[in-house]
């Protein structure tokens, strides 16, 4: 039976065409852009290529998983990822700034990426216990779980990522019908807490937060990145300087140009037209993801699909907003474009799960 099942799923690899197309297209764009930046360092490109292949495999494998299996795996996976987060805290030396990485032999890996996913899955399980909208007790449990996931990240300390995790968690509750009253109340409470917390912070923490809100006040660091990134983007113009013709990225004016600021390099070389194209691809992915959510009747799968899609959008939006000087500088990669295995893997997982949800929904539809 088992062998048969295995065999069956390998032979009939089910994918969702729109998501798959987008996921195949982005690595190409990413390699093209990176090629322009890294010059002769082909080892870097090669490693990125390997990451892409691994990511594609992950998409194809995860897409075949039964949502019911995923649901049952949710809580153990969440507990495991939380444990890894705490391991980072214990493992890391607190005097040496933020330690966000875990090393398993040759594998580097950022547990906070994983937690974002497993938190959404867990909240979806909690919310799916009863018919929506969310009851009070479920809301409270959900908020508690969100705090549980945020605290170790805040302690790392990595405030930016903690906020993103919190938002991802809240999006599940939002889709589960969290009442507008509670949403507004939480917003108000957050604002009210600021004057209480602010004076208690150390001076250098206050400076940090001010820079976080307004990086141009700190031209030596984050502000410098933003200024240079804006010059790169702005000088690209309508049609761009052309592939391999960018100067800001090449002259090393742009920091982190293979990871967080790859968007600026892309826009310098491909211009506004290139940007519109890029945005269209992302929006195709996002709209397709939300459509899948819209058409899924299973409560857990519906909530999960919507929330995961939002994660991808938030990555994209925060990264682009940061590079164009609209948002504070947070180290968020551009999904499917930036170098770096952790983010590539988490987007691959998201894409795979979205496909799996789609596949199961289709199957269910045919069954009835």
């Amino acid at each position, binding site marked *: 039976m088992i062998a048969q099942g295995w065999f069956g799923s390998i032979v009939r690899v089910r994918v969702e065409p729109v998501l798959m197309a987008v996921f195949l297209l982005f690595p190409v764009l990413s390699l093209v852009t990176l090629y322009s930046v890294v010059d002769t360092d082909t080892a870097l490109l090669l490693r990125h290529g390997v990451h892409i292949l691994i990511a594609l495999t992950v998409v194809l494998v995860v897409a075949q998983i039964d949502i019911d299996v995923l649901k049952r795996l949710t809580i153990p996976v969440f507990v495991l990822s939380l444990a890894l987060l705490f391991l980072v805290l214990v493992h890391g030396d607190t005097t040496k700034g933020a330690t966000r990485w875990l090393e398993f032999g040759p594998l580097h890996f950022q547990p906070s990426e994983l937690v974002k996913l497993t938190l959404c899955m867990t909240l979806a399980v909690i919310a799916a216990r009863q018919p929506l909208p969310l009851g009070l007790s479920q809301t409270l449990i959900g908020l508690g779980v969100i705090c549980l996931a945020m605290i170790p990240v805040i302690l790392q300390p990595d405030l930016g990522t903690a906020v993103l995790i919190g938002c991802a968690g809240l*999006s599940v509750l939002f889709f589960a019908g969290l009442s507008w009253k509670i949403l507004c109340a939480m917003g108000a409470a957050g604002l009210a807490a600021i004057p209480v917390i602010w004076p208690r912070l150390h001076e250098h923490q206050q400076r940090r937060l001010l820079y976080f809100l307004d990086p141009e006040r700190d031209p030596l660091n984050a502000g410098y990145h933003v200024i240079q990134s804006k010059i790169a983007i*702005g000088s690209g113009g309508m049609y761009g300087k052309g592939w391999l013709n960018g100067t800001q990225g090449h002259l090393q004016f742009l920091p982190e140009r293979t990871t967080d600021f790859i968007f600026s390099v892309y826009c310098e070389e491909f211009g506004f037209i290139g940007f519109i194209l890029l945005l269209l691809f992302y929006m195709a992915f996002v709209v397709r993801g939300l459509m899948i959510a*819209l058409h899924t*009747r299973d409560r*857990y799968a519906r909530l999960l699909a919507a929330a995961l899609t939002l994660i991808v959008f938030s990555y994209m939006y925060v990264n682009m907003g940061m590079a164009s000087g609209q948002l504070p500088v947070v180290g968020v990669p551009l999904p499917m474009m930036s170098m770096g295995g952790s983010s590539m893997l988490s987007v691959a997982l998201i894409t795979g799960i979205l496909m799996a949800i789609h596949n199961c929904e289709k199957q269910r539809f045919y069954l009835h």
Partner: protein
Amino acid sequence: MKAYRWDSATDHELRLSRARIIFALVVLLILAGGLILRMFFLQVVQHAHYTTLSRDNRLHVVPILPQRGEIYSSDGVLLAGNLATYNLVVQTERRSGLPTRPELLRLGQLLGADAESMFRSVHTARPNRQGTLLLLEGLSEERVAKFSVHQHLFPGIDVQTGFRRYYPLASVSAHVVGRVGGLDKRDLAAVAEPEQYRLRNRIGKTGIEKRYEELLRGYLGYHSAEVNADGRIVRILETVPPRQGEALVLNINADLQLEAHAALAGRRGAVVAIEPASGRVLALVSTPSYDPNPVTIGLDKQQYQRIKQRADAPLFNRSIHGQYPPGSVIKPFLAQAALAGTVSSGQARHCPGWFRINGAGRRFHDWKAYGHGAVNLVSALEQSCDVYFYGLALQLGIEGMAAALEGFGFGSATGIDLDGEHTGLIPDPQWKQARHKEPWYTGETVITGIGQGYMLVTPVQLAVATAALATNGWLPVPTLLGGRRNPLTDEWLGTLPPPAGSHLAAAAVQWEQVRQGMRRVVHGERGTARGIAMGLEAYEIAGKTGTAQVVVRELSGTSAELEDHSLFIAYAPIQEPRIALAVVIENGGSGSKYAAPVARRLFDHYLRPATARLDR
């Protein structure tokens, strides 16, 4: 086919979900629209502006170094300051922007420098992280003035003002103030705000310089400047001045520090003096010491290695790192422990000059061959009778002694604000089993009673514990930092925490008996340190001598006996103690002969001016 367990979704639920998802979709589309507008603004509307910035002129941000905070003693003596230095640099990031040979020839003529060597150094050296190249180092003010007049002839060449750390008291304060040194990768990995170290090449390496690095270093300022295609600065757009580091005022009394350093001259040893009530460290000296000034400028490796490997270890801070057997200076603390237990001070013992456990077996000898006769607790302290304390040690037991000594802070760090303090060692049977895999012998309990055996203490621990004797049980945390001052406004910054410490509980009568014993060490007829009472009228001293046997296990495996360590702990004036100190002189011989006179000299120096003032 497999059956799925699907949650049944009601129509109401689906409507809710649809509403929420569509709402989210609308929000996302609006956000994406915002991005499009922003990008349109950058790439189409402001395209020309950014093209200019990108092609012709690029924005450069050049950090400006703040001055490192100065360090003062409590009596206002500068312990660490900054000297201005002037360097001639080229601001460039491209080879084509380097000064030409004729340019350098003219410059060489103007300043009387060798143009050829400047040319070589510019064209072979790599620019630093900020894209500056060093042309000439350490210019005199006269040459700086000359250059400034003619600067328009040399575009792109600049005078860079820098600062060099300077320690006026040199070796006297080296072990307190510490020194700065070259910034390396490991330093950068350990600091909280690494971005504050752009442009810097110095960081606090030892002492106060290291411990209060974050207060001292200040905050960078910056110029934002337009740079032309050659990478030379065309004009400065904006300047934000740096913020100077805070000035630190230490509790160290420079006068006393100098005197203590002089008193130890030519010897290996340490002195720690603290104010008993507050824990303020008045003097902290370790000799031999070293002059941090040349080290700061940058010695070459060989010179530094020579200092580092000298046999008398001048870089070693004996006051907090040196661990010594305490010898008899441990006796007042054991006496205190015994009084708190079952021993009464009047209880007399007979000292025949030796001691045997239960009157049998090996003889433990007194330092005085024929013994002290009948002694009680006070006279045993006065004469430092070993036999009395052998008996006391057996009565207390090793665990009892260990607990009492740990109460006085031995065996753990005192918490002084210097890095890497050693803890010393208070042995007990568990420790010995773990460390040496051997059981504890009663004989080891006996010799622990006179501060020999495995026990090790640091000078700063001795000073703190002595302060506890002086204050009837207040065990202070020794602190060097007295205050922080804004260097520009002279305004005091932040409130320092109140004196920290803990209280040892014991009856006042018991403290008084130990005090009597220690008073008689100096002022008694048969006191071991009665020599230092000569001519002493203005105040009284309570003290205790110690002579610690040193056995050094040499490489060959045989034990060689060295000259004893000479120790002395004391506080004064006896009724209202204002200073408590510990003196350790390595291989100095007996405590009474060497360490005790150092203490007298320091007490005189610290207390006499005050008594003179009172008389007036």
